[in-house]
């Protein structure tokens, strides 16, 4: 899907909460001491944080970098599977918190872990068609996992906001094209009014994650006539360490292309924030002219792939923290504090 008019990233912001729990601490709780775990530690939201507050933090960072008037934003879309309200738009709360105009379109997107990239595609369409000037697309989650479930060793919290607009000489990067690949594949789901998601274990691999990411990425490369070596970086959704590495190698990418956007070992899987935070980490260091592949994955299932060309990196020395700095700013909590933070103690 190539836009008729090119759309760029005006600015971006990533947010990772300060608290971490070591996965070895989770393993201690459930009698799995000493096992090799794919993730070192995961980011945990504070008790007073949720996907809306983290969306606001990421959006405020993006706006501080952009120095544009928030009243010029025409669309605010939040992709998340941990909406604090089942019914009430998160986008309106973000809009009010950043001082956006009421004359905008706002909605929440849900497609498991790819709600954020859906928001991004929608903004690209609205901007390319000239319907809006700027759009704010956010992917954010407080990843949910049932106590003792495999997921508990990987889920993290965080999100990223992208302020997109028409491509100019000043935009940070621009989108060449995006493709999506979706099928009805029940690999991971959460029924209404249930607190934790369920998953089909090994079925989440080949027919789900790999099939969708590989197809979306191959279709994107075919549409643009690119090969893996045409990209400097590749960022995939990160439910664990193995999947993005394997998907990358299946598609012909090298570990070097993948490693910079691979945040899972120290962040965890921030669901709708996962691939987008990986993109933020890459944009923090990428140089003009470099090309980035981004492929999200949402269970249920689908993948959105994007080809992004870096134009500018104007952020050296600015006061907004880089992802690498946010990952280093941390406070460890134990499992008991973790369950309190994540609302797993019901009282």
């Amino acid at each position, binding site marked *: 899907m190539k836009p008729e008019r090119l759309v760029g990233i005006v600015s971006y912001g990533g947010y990772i909460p*300060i608290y971490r729990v070591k996965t070895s601490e989770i393993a201690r709780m459930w009698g799995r001491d000493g096992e090799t775990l794919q993730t070192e530690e995961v980011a945990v939201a*504070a*008790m*007073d*944080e*949720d996907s*809306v*507050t983290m969306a*606001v*933090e990421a959006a*405020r960072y993006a706006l501080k970098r952009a120095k544009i008037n928030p009243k010029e934003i025409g669309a605010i879309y939040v992709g998340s599977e941990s909406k*604090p*309200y089942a019914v009430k738009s998160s986008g309106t*709360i973000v809009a*009010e*918190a950043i*001082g956006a105009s009421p004359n905008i379109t706002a909605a929440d997107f849900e497609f498991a872990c790819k709600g954020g990239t859906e928001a991004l595609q929608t903004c690209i369409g609205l901007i390319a068609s000239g319907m809006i000037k700027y759009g704010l697309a956010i992917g954010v989650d407080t990843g949910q996992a049932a106590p003792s479930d495999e997921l508990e060793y990987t889920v993290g919290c965080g999100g990223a906001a992208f302020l997109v607009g028409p491509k100019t000489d000043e935009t940070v990067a621009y989108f060449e094209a995006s493709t999506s690949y979706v099928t009805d594949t029940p690999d991971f789901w959460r029924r209404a009014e249930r607190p934790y998601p369920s998953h089909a274990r090994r079925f989440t691999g080949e027919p789900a994650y790999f099939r969708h990411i590989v197809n979306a990425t191959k279709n994107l490369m075919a549409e643009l006539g690119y090969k893996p070596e045409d990209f400097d970086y590749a960022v995939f959704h990160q439910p664990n360490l193995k999947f993005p590495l394997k998907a990358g190698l299946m598609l012909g990418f090298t570990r070097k292309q993948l490693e910079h956007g691979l945040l899972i070992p120290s962040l965890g899987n921030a669901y709708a924030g996962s691939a987008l935070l990986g993109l933020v980490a890459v944009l923090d260091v990428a140089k003009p002219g470099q090309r980035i592949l981004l492929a999200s994955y949402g269970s249920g299932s689908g993948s959105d792939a994007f080809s992004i060309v870096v134009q500018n990196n104007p952020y050296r020395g600015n006061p907004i*923290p880089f992802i690498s*700095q946010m990952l280093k*700013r941390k*406070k460890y909590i134990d499992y008991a504090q973790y369950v*309190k933070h994540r609302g797993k103690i019901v*009282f």
Partner: protein
Amino acid sequence: MLSAPRYWREIRYRYRLIGSRCLKCGKIYFPRRLVCAVCGSRKLEDYKLSEKGKIKTFTVIRRSPPLGYEKNVPYVVAVVELEDGVNVLSQIVDVSPEEVKIGMPVELTFRKVRENGKEGIIEYGFKFRPIFE
């Protein structure tokens, strides 16, 4: 707990830290006022406060928190002196009570303030956290 309309009336002030400034004498207020306490003028305008400041004084709430704050204990409540000279009463987050010090530089953050039970509205608003180093 605030009723939905009462919370709604204060949303923009609480989310974005907006106070009021007297057009006659220049005094800045937070929360906002309709009448200037210094010169009596009724001509005040919205004023966006600075998002950075330092802790002037603080206390730690450990027992008997107000309704809706029970799960937060122990938590820090401070008077934050903003860069524009205005004092704001706020919770301080992302820091343990033992680490808080008078003079500590802090910045604005957006957090849940209170939940009206499992079925009521979620009240969001400003808090402060130590400045990112």
